[in-house]
């Protein structure tokens, strides 16, 4: 047990050193920007991973929560000229409230029906962003979202923002890890394996599913907040159905029920489009092919798949 704890602490340490080293050594603002996006996507994937990987409930509408976080802070800071630090708790509260209202009837469904229910919700929220012009700015969105500041310290440089985002990622990782290792985490995994069985041993599955849905929505809301203040411009296109699917893909490609898998999936799917720009017209074809091939060859996701290959070769050569 203590060796497990030691390994966990060590992995946080290595992670933190890697982030600090990247922040200090990289001077190219484009790379810092890409790394910041990886951080934001990691928060999204971590949140969805709690819901999909651990509790076994699918959501095809997570971009709605991402968007709600971004739009709340945009409206409060641009329209009402309030401080972003006031907007953050408001955004989180709103997202949690919406997740509660939507989750209450939707989480009774399962399988494709749950997928379609959340997809429908995501679509409706996206249409609201696009059509409710007086509040959301319509198709042209919001411009001039102010950068974050803490007293005299400004996060407007890409290096400072990079640190801010990755600190949030680290906090989210610790939060998720602690939750998974607790009694709640075990209950969640029992829902994943069999909802009836976990009900039979006294887990309140309805409440637990709702709570993990709200947690995962809250993380998406935080990601939306970070996105809005980083890019300083938001439009409905950033929060549509395709984005919801992309978050699910991050979780599945990385490997479900694995925190580092979510991180890996988010990095891969953020970097892939950047690399594929070279293919210009063939970009979509190559992207689709890679997605299919990874899933055909490693249906358990990258982390589990690579571990399997490692263990197999270990057995073969060291026995």
């Amino acid at each position, binding site marked *: 047990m203590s060796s497990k704890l030691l390994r966990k602490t060590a992995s946080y340490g290595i992670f933190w050193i890697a982030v600090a080293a990247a922040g200090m050594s990289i001077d190219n603002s484009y790379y810092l920007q890409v790394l910041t996006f990886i951080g934001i996507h990691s928060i999204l994937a971590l949140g969805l991973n709690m819901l999909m990987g651990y509790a076994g409930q699918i959501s095809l509408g997570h971009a709605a929560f991402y968007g709600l976080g971004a739009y709340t802070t945009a409206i409060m800071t641009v329209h009402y000229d309030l401080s972003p630090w006031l907007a953050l708790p408001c955004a989180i509260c709103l997202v949690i409230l919406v997740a509660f209202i939507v989750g209450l009837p939707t989480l009774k469904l399962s399988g494709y029906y749950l997928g379609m*229910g959340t997809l429908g919700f995501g679509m*409706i929220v996206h249409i609201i962003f696009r059509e409710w012009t007086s509040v959301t700015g319509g198709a042209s969105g919001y411009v001039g979202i102010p950068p974050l500041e803490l007293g005299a310290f400004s996060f407007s440089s890409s290096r400072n923002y990079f640190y801010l985002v990755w600190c949030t990622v680290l906090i989210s990782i610790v939060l998720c890890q602690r939750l998974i290792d607790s009694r709640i985490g075990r209950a969640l995994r029992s829902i994943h394996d069999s909802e009836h069985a976990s009900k039979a041993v006294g887990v309140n599955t309805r409440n637990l599913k709702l709570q993990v849905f709200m947690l995962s929505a809250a993380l998406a809301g935080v990601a939306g907040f970070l996105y809005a203040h980083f890019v300083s411009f938001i439009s409905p296109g950033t929060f549509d159905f395709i984005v919801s699917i992309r978050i699910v893909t991050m979780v*599945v490609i990385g490997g479900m029920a694995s925190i580092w898998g979510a991180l890996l999936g988010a990095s891969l799917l953020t970097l892939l489009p950047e690399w594929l720009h070279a293919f210009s*017209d063939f970009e979509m074809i190559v992207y689709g*092919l890679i997605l299919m091939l990874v899933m055909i060859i490693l249906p358990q996701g990258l982390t589990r798949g690579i571990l399997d290959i490692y263990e197999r070769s270990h057995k073969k050569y060291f026995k």
Partner: protein
Amino acid sequence: MQEALQYVFSGITNGAIYAAIAVGFSLLYNSTELINFAHGEFVMLGALILVTLWNIFKLPLPLAFFITVFTVSGMGLLFERLAIRTVSKPHPIVLVIITVGASIFFRGIGMLLWGKDSYSVPSFSDHAPITIFGASLLPQSLWILVIVGISVCALHFFFKKTLTGKAMQACAINKRAARLSGIHSEKMVLLAFFLSTGMGAVAGIIIAPITMCSYNMGTMLGLKGFCAAMLGGLGSLWGSLIGGFLLGIVEALGVGFFSSSLKDAIAFLLLLLILYMRPGGIMRVKEVKRF
């Protein structure tokens, strides 16, 4: 009154197309318990291949129709053999991601072959619109209804009267039992893919004259078809038909009486309503499996 009738006509036209797409989803779900997120792209391919064969190569329409359907079905078969069957331990969500990948892939192919332009084709026949109680019905709408009607009746006949169709249904009910009585279940899955993508191509062909065809028309059509299949009851042939028409008519009335910008919102609101009140769909089907 006249206005409402006009909306209903356009709703029935769209509804027939949604129904054709929904039937494709249901067919596949029945025999493989798989939702093919690339289904909309097969609709797109159907429409664009027809545009090429009919308008550019000047083939006669019936010939172009059949060549298109068989080309797209052939692609569906290839897709099943190369991408779906090769997965070793298929978890439903993994298969979903593979079909999402396929949908991006096919959209890429569409963009490469046809570019980013929109194409349109003339109506199947050049009769004048028919006027009923002051509302006009386009001849193309009749074509759509007739073609969807014939395909669905043919499918019904196939499932009820032919040995192969009964074997497919047996596979859908219980794969192992079907296998024990000597049915080649893998062939049946292949056949399901053939029929499902074929229906997708038919939907694409009949929608071509009333919309602008481009490489990205498939996604929304696919989602609407999925929506219709869920409304009616996933896996049920007649349920898909009902779901499609219901979706089309409600959407058309919503657009007519409220606002056209809310068109897609209405479809999904209807879906959420049905999911909350009657999760199995209108024609309630067997309890669905969870992931």
